[in-house]
């Protein structure tokens, strides 16, 4: 058998070809995310704007009459926007204290054993499909809300009974769903607080609670802010969990009203809508997308500020 002669030069060409191809493939993979973001943005704008020209921006955004299938259709989504804003805001108000305090327990107080249990529970909570939250919302929260509704509006003649499918139910479901996000990110930022701060606070005679609430939490405030912003993002984009729980009719977001969110608005009518009606649904998608972009920008700003402070 002839012995293969290996030359330093001979191999170089094929080898560098392989190298080149490999690096080109990797670049392409990396660029996918840029292409995806650009095309998603593009499609959202292209599909969301026609309705604005047909119906008029103010007739969509600032009118609260939603009658897409009437003979004189009206496409005001003000109530829907307000529902999303108020719903998410309230969910944050409920979720943040619980989430942050749980994170405090995880990062500062709990023993390793307890910590492990809590962490596993939170991880699982994050993995539960949103439709399952929806199912439980309908069967656990809605009946409770209905009891409350019956109690409060016992003598009311004007109240439209919703069977418990109302804004409060949706807020509770949303608050639960954002907990894992809030807890995980807050915990990470608490862990990043240098131990020196705790030590010197304790050495000044502060109690553990004083140390946590006066030094550790303020030092982690950027992280907590990001947690809240991400929680807002998660809540405003949620659909399937609140689709049925919220009752899904377009109303002003009062606690016991059946309401429709931006997300649920799209899903509940996309199946049958056509023409301008369908286009307006895409406009709702665009509005949602703008909200998400704003949230992302705020987040980037917070993180950047955090970096600067860290230096």
């Amino acid at each position, binding site marked *: 058998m002839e012995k293969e002669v290996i030359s330093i030069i001979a191999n170089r060409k094929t*080898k560098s070809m392989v*190298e080149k191809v*490999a*690096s080109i*493939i*990797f*670049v392409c*993979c*990396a*660029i*996918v*995310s*840029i292409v*995806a*973001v650009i*095309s*998603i943005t593009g*499609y*959202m704008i292209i599909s969301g704007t026609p309705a604005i020209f047909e119906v008029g921006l103010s007739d969509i955004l600032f009118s609260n009459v939603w009658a897409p299938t009437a003979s004189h259709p009206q496409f005001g989504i003000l109530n829907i926007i307000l529902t999303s804003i108020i719903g998410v805001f309230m969910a944050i108000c409920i979720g943040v204290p*619980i989430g942050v*305090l*749980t994170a*405090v327990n995880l990062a500062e*107080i709990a023993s390793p054993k307890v910590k492990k249990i*809590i962490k*596993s*529970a*939170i991880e*699982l*909570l994050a*993995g*539960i*499909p949103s*439709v*399952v*939250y*929806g*199912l439980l919302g309908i*069967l*656990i929260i809605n009946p409770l809300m209905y009891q409350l509704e019956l109690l409060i509006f016992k003598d009311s003649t004007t109240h439209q009974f919703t069977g418990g499918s109302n804004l409060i139910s949706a807020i509770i479901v949303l608050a639960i769903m954002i*907990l894992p996000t809030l807890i995980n990110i807050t915990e990470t930022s608490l862990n990043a607080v240098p131990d020196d701060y705790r030590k010197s606070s304790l050495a000044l005679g502060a*109690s553990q609670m*004083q140390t*946590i609430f006066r030094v550790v939490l303020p030092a982690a405030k950027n992280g907590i802010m990001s947690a809240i912003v*991400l929680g807002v993002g*998660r809540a405003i*984009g949620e*659909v399937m969990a609140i689709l*049925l729980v919220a009752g899904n009719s377009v109303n002003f977001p009062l606690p016991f009203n059946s309401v429709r969110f931006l*997300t649920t608005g*799209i*899903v509940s009518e996309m199946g049958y809508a056509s023409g301008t009606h369908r286009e307006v649904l*895409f406009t709702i*998608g665009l509005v*949602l*997308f703008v909200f*998400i*972009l704003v949230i*992302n920008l705020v*987040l980037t700003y917070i993180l950047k500020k955090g970096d600067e402070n860290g230096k």
Partner: protein
Amino acid sequence: MENSLFNKKSRISDKILNILIQFSTLISVSLLVVIIGYICIRGIPCFRFDYLINTTSILKNTVGILPNIINTIYIILLTLIIAGPIGIGGAIYLNEYATNKKIVEIISFTTEVLAGIPSIIYGLFGMLFFGNLFNLSYSILTGALTLSIMVLPIISRNTQVALEAVPKSYREAALGIGATKWYMIRTVLLPSAIPGVLTGVILAMGRIVAESAALLFTAGSVSALPINIFSHIFSSGGTLTIQLYLEMAKAHYEVAFVIALVLIIIVLALNFIAKWISQKFDVNKVG
């Protein structure tokens, strides 16, 4: 002595705060217990093995979720086949090749944005882009392509973290004995980064299993058994979550709880596997 160390002050505010903290934790943890407990209590009595091997048919008078299980598996595999290489490749580029800081920043930013886009937006985009433009209409492929973009950040971020954890000395050692870059990545980097990559893949699986909003208008909601293994990807197919939603909307709670039970078991299993991998292959573990 007035100023004695023994005059223990009991701070009421400390006690209240501690109670609040413990109470919050209790809420967070008990939520999970309630959710899983409730699903088990309602789901297990309804559960019959028939459900898993039957299709729902009015003619034969059977109820079953086999098609949905198959569709879910299809979507998981297809999505991972598409997103896996892209996500891992992108991460390799960012960590090993990219020299331009600006590009790295832009890619990291877009990845961040992708991670923050809600699934309903992916659903709309997938419907318009893959469904209408590529004319794939409602099909498992449309769904998988849509979800691929959605899980891309999960896979690429976990891969990146895993690559970062590989000591620099490994790279230098490999390059130092004359390995080319790609060879070094293939033989040294990726093998030591595998646990991290796998964790990312499993997290992505969890996300896919749980997804519904992005699939409703892309993969559709048909529950039919595949006629042909390959052509099935071009037909509409509803996953377990979609079926759960449909049953729930029709108030068929019995089937809904069976599906919920199956979903929870899958989620638990994936969670367990991810934990097992990260513990088993912990690179930083000494000894």
